[in-house]
């Protein structure tokens, strides 16, 4: 699959290149287009620019100085210190919780989806069509419409206010199954499987030794998107958790922000920590996306076209 994606890309580059050479007008258009896209890029990056600037300010400067440039004092390091020490270091605890929830959910969901996607794509069995149809039909069931029902069930079996309340619901990803099903259909050739079977390899051996490698881009794609979904999830942990020591970073930051802007007895000093904490919380995911882009982009191509 990867090869069929890579090949057109390099060929198209040359085609476009010769195109530009034949028509000098396109060269000018490219500047105009670059300028227009540059304006869009400014829109998409300026809130993050503001966040970086704001993280260097103390609470006083946040209110009194111009928002899009540095304030009087450079307080980034004292802000980071305040963020990590506030209320016995609960920020670090929330980051650790988020990491655990997101990684466990993502590895679990991507593994389940990869196994099942492969099973649906490579084997014929009774009821395969209806079963797959049922699961894929639930892609359209919104996660938050499912959240309150899950809460009701979990409170019945005493799972609310535990880490499981966040991890378990994130394990089922019908869209992940869809991606892996499409991916496994194209990435694994029947003849290779057949050859391995003739050699007497068991089904699990075949899966782990022969096919898993070609499923990696799809696996990483599902992994990353479940990671983001769990990392960014707010509604589910908000309703499931009461104990702040279980909070993920989203609910934690939200509770700090409520204290910072709330009316009576509000703690305005906390605002600088909300801002700095927000900045620190988005760095790991951005880094993950940049480092793993080779994988998730080819994985997405498979899903996007075959729908």
């Amino acid at each position, binding site marked *: 699959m990867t090869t069929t*994606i890579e090949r057109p890309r390099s060929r198209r580059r040359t085609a476009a290149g010769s195109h530009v050479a034949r028509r000098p007008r396109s060269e000018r258009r490219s500047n105009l287009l670059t300028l227009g896209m540059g304006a869009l890029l400014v829109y998409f*990056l300026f809130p993050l620019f503001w*966040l970086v600037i704001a993280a260097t300010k103390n609470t006083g400067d946040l209110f009194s100085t111009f928002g899009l440039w540095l304030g009087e004092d450079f307080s980034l390091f004292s802000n980071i210190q305040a963020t990590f020490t506030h209320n016995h270091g609960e920020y670090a605890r929330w980051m650790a919780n988020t990491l655990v929830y997101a990684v466990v959910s993502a590895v679990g969901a991507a593994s389940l989806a990869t196994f099942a996607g492969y099973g649906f794509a490579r084997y014929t069995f009774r009821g395969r069509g209806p079963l797959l149809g049922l699961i894929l039909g639930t892609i359209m069931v919104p996660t938050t419409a499912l959240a309150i029902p899950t809460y009701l069930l979990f409170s019945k079996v005493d799972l609310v206010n535990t880490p499981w309340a966040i991890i378990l619901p994130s394990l089922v990803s019908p869209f992940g199954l869809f991606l892996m099903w499409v991916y496994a259909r194209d990435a694994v050739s029947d003849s290779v499987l057949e050859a391995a079977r003739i050699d007497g390899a068991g089904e699990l051996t075949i899966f782990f030794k022969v096919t898993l490698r070609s499923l990696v881009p799809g696996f990483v794609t599902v992994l990353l998107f479940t990671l983001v979904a769990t990392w960014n999830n707010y509604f589910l942990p908000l309703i499931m958790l009461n104990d702040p020591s279980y909070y993920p970073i*989203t609910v934690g930051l939200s509770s700090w922000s409520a204290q910072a802007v709330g009316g009576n007895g509000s703690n305005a000093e906390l605002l600088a920590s909300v801002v700095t904490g927000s900045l620190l919380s988005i760095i790991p995911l951005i880094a993950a996306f940049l480092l793993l882009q080779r994988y998730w982009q080819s994985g997405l191509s498979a899903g996007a076209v075959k729908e």
Partner: protein
Amino acid sequence: MPLSAAAPRRPQAGNRAYLFITPFLVCFVLLFLLPLAYAGYLSLFKDQLVGGTVFVGLDNYLRAVQDARLLDGVLRVALFFLIQVPIMLLVALAVALAVDSGLLRLANMFRLGVFIPYAVPSVVAALMWGYLYGPDFGPLTQLGERLGFAAPRLLGDSWMLASLGNIVTWEFAGYNMIILFSALRTVPVERYEAAAVDGAGPWRIAWHIKIPALRPALLLCLIFSVIGSFQLFAEPNLIQRLAPTVIDSSYTPNLYAYSLAFTSQQVNYAAAVSFLLGFVILVVSYAVLLLTTRRPRR
């Protein structure tokens, strides 16, 4: 989705398939179907001060469809969907086509830059934009003052929906762009080459070849956007603190379901509202599917 399109497989390996699909199926039943069934069961009851929990049939649903607060919320997110989603998808499409066109300098940087907001949690996005919108000390107001015009009251009643729409567009345009861009990457090069030989410029290639080829991917984006719009929660929930008089507890259906379940303790009614909301989303999704895949009349 063409389930039958899969190539035929060896039947003798049939039972071994369960080895692979059982873990997923168990989780699917326990964590997807069972909660829905349990909530569906709860939605048929009512908690009364006198007499405890009693079976009331479909009363909760009858009450929900006549609940003005719920209907207002549904209409609000429907309006949000009709305006925000086309803007977001147009931006996503424009960026995807531009990055794919080969006419753009630093294309890779643009692609990643536009995508980065997707990695920002909606909580952080709402906190940032909420601050940027601030009427007293927000940078947008400051910028307006420096340039000599009064910025609109972005957290006021008349601008709130647009302000929320801007946050959601900022968060998800890049995600949709990546889906569209990935789909563009799989269009066979031969089609472009043939068109270029016929003298078609990049704009005509985009309009006549690329956009039609993007149809399935656009549809996927559209369906995800239906789901996203109708279950809007985190952004209004956080902005609510900055504008408590503008965003009330039933501003969106999800805010309403949340306040029903956790503030006013009407669990059974909240279950019915969740169900109804899920149903509305399914209906709108299928309506979008039907409208966009309808064959043109001869």
